[in-house]
């Protein structure tokens, strides 16, 4: 897809600035389409009801792309300039295609005796009187340009009920001229091809990182266009089943702005039409914000009230809600955006894209701050546990455990009859010895008590493991807590210190279980019952110790007055739970080691 949307928009941009004739033409075109649709109220197809859902999906996907666009737009002005030379080729190509379509549609739909040109003119004039006051026409040219870029496509799409997907296709094809012949295919195909293309567009930068910068720029330009067009698309498709009349209103108010191709077709269809007094409309044609949409719609409702079915307003409301939902999606700066839209309805100055851009910038800023913060201070429990070599000791302990299981399997397989039963009984007994009582978990324990009990247990199994390092960690943590003045440490400091202490205690505990396993395996005289008893006791004490430490930290935390305190207290207990689980798992891994000693 050499030619991207961005070029396309560029061309629209240029045209708006230099060629006001095109605007005029597009206005006429949309009026033409209004007429078409009105004439064919009966042809309204129920099938279209399913489409809005899909549209919304697309729409949502595109919406966030939309918000990305502004930055790349700013960042790469050169790229945009570089694309300009190609600009004018595409719309010209499209002209003929669209012309064909429109002509075909007209042939299909309009009564034979109907004159194509005159009604269009008439309607156009009506509308400029009814819908657009002088004030409303005073939109800023810039806004007009921006919006016309984005709405360029949607007009084509929603122009006529039956042909709308065809046109959509044609419009899409304009970006990939190679597949132009497809344009008059069935509706379904169009839809799927649209979605495919969409994906392609999005993934391209990831798959081909070499020319990332260019591609990305292209795709974001493209997405920009798609986002808005599909957003409006959704609106217009939804409206389709309210009533034909309403559809055309929305089209003519949202959509009119100037699809290049249509403008040019229209030129040919209505060459004889005078264009003198269209200048004012020209400015307004491209510029649309919600307030204008609403006023346009309501005015039309007034004038064509009889044509509007009763449920129309409800559906409009639904459109509004859905549109709002789409706009709100992924937008943390929602309040601001709302304020903007309100403002919008009064002054008509800030437009949607501006609001979105600011919301996006705000969100990005917030995100970036969060990242900075996490980079500065926060290491998660798992990382800390790994830093203290807890994870790798656990892994090595698993290997050891597996080694023992294999040994046990070999022995089991070599036995049969009574001796096999005896063995299995022994294995089962060891397992029972290693069962941890579950109700002791809540007991708190002082460091000194724990130290004493664990030292005695280690003596019992007479292997040179030591928990001294662990108790040093505990004592240091307590010292830190005692000395920590709340004026100098914050919530994050305490939380981080808590996680580090828990991770370190757990890592050492796992390490010592690992060492115990290794040492027991090379020990000459085993005493399985004592080993099991001691290790069960050690495990229980370790779990109590973890809980005690966690409580000390959370007590300190709860002295602080801050919103995040509760979250961190919860997190400390959560990680304390994790610690206890790691320790318990490590102990379970020792069971085969004990079993090997028993047989």
């Amino acid at each position, binding site marked *: 897809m050499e030619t991207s949307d961005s070029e396309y928009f560029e061309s629209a941009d240029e045209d708006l600035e230099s060629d006001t004739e095109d605007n005029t033409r597009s206005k006429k075109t949309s009026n033409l389409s209004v007429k078409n649709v009105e004439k064919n109220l009966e042809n309204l197809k129920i099938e279209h009801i399913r489409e809005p859902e899909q549209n919304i999906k697309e729409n*949502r*996907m*595109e*919406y*966030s*792309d939309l918000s*990305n666009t502004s930055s790349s737009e700013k960042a790469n002005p050169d790229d945009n300039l570089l694309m300009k030379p190609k600009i004018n080729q595409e719309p010209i190509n499209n002209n003929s295609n669209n012309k064909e379509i429109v002509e075909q549609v007209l042939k299909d739909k309009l009564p034979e005796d109907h004159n194509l040109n005159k009604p269009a003119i008439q309607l156009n004039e009506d509308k400029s009187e009814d819908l657009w006051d002088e004030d409303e026409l005073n939109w800023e040219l810039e806004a007009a340009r921006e919006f016309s870029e984005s709405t360029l496509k949607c007009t084509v799409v929603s122009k006529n009920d039956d042909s709308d997907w065809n046109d959509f296709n044609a419009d899409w094809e304009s970006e990939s001229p190679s597949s132009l012949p497809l344009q008059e295919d069935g509706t379904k195909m169009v839809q799927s091809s649209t979605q495919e293309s969409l*994906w392609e*567009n*999005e*993934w*391209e*930068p*990831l798959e081909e*990182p070499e020319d*990332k910068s260019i591609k*990305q720029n292209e*795709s*974001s330009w493209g*997405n920009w266009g798609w986002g808005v067009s599909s957003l409006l698309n959704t609106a217009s498709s939804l409206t389709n089943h309210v009533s034909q009349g309403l559809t055309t209103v929305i089209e003519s108010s949202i959509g009119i702005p100037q699809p290049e191709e249509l403008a040019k077709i229209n030129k040919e269809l209505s060459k004889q039409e005078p264009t003198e007094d269209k200048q004012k409309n020209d400015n307004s044609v491209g510029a649309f914000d919600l307030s204008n949409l609403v006023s346009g719609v309501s005015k039309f409702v007034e004038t064509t009230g009889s044509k509007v079915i009763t449920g129309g307003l409800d559906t409009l409301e639904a459109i509004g809600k859905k549109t709002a939902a789409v706009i709100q*999606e*992924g937008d943390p700066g929602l309040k601001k955006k709302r304020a903007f839209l309100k403002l919008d309805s009064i002054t008509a100055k800030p437009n949607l894209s501006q609001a979105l851009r600011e919301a996006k910038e705000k969100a990005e800023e917030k995100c970036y701050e969060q*990242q900075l913060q996490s*980079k500065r201070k926060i*290491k998660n429990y798992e*990382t800390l546990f*790994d*830093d203290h*070599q807890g994870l*790798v*000791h656990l*892994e*090595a302990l698993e*290997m*050891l455990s*597996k*080694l023992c299981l294999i040994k046990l399997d070999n022995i089991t397989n070599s036995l049969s009859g009574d001796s096999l039963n005896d063995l299995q009984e022994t294995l089962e007994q060891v397992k029972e010895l290693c069962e941890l009582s579950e109700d002791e978990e809540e007991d708190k324990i002082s460091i000194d008590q724990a130290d004493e009990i664990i030292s005695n247990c280690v003596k019992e199994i007479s292997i*040179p493991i030591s928990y001294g390092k662990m108790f040093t960690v505990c004592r240091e943590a307590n010292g830190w807590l005692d000395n920590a003045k709340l004026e100098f440490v914050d919530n994050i400091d305490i939380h981080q210190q808590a996680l580090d202490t828990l991770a370190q205690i757990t890592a050492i505990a796992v390490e010592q279980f*690992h*060492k115990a*396993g*290794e*040492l027991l*395996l*090379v020990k000459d005289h085993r005493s399985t019952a004592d080993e099991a008893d001691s290790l069960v006791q050690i495990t229980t004490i370790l779990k109590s110790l973890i809980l005690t430490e966690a409580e000390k930290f959370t007590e300190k935390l709860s002295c602080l007055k801050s919103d995040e305190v509760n979250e961190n207290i919860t997190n400390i207990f959560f990680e304390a739970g994790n610690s206890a689980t790691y320790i318990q798992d490590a102990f379970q891994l020792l069971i085969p080691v004990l079993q090997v000693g028993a047989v």
Partner: protein
Amino acid sequence: MVEPIFDYQFRLILIGDSTVGKSSLLKYFTDGKFAEVSDPTVGVDFFARLIEVKDGTRIKLQLWDTAGQERFRSITKSYYRNSVGALLVYDICNMSSFEHVPQWMSEAKRHIEPHRPVFALVGCKADLVNNGGQREVSKEEAKAFADNHGIYFIETSAKSGLNVEDAFKAVTQEVYNRIQSGEYKVEDGWDGIKTGFSRPNSLDYHLAEAEPARPSCCL
């Protein structure tokens, strides 16, 4: 403590006779310190350090320091698996430790799965030779053995720090080269090579790159 920011993690294992200086070598490499007295390793111990290869890629080395003592032999065998590199360590002043190198090597070949590891032959205690100690293993015969097996060879001292860095750098670079050549790949279920965290300064780049795809997952 190791910074958690690295591109790859390699698991290297140190094997060799008891008291040749594996733990001291690692201690110097990771802490820059030398302990005159140290306890014999029980089973396996772990060290970690971040190192950069020539193109600036940051590698976290997870170093498995095995016990050389005969009594742990059956246990340490179970730790070989999943290593991507193996340092065959001997004592320059202890001929028998060098004579056992072929056994250590075949042991490693047998137990290291699923890929053949990068080997390096590392002579320790080079400082003793300069201080009137008795060299028992000549540089030439060690070099000949290494060349014969097509592996890297270096003499080091954990006391003076001589060549310690180079020994690990060489193995790391070779593992990295093999990744580049496609011989080694990051695989699920193989812990020899793992991918790590990306660097913070590349964060923005990644974010920008990922953005076009984001709508599909979060909306």
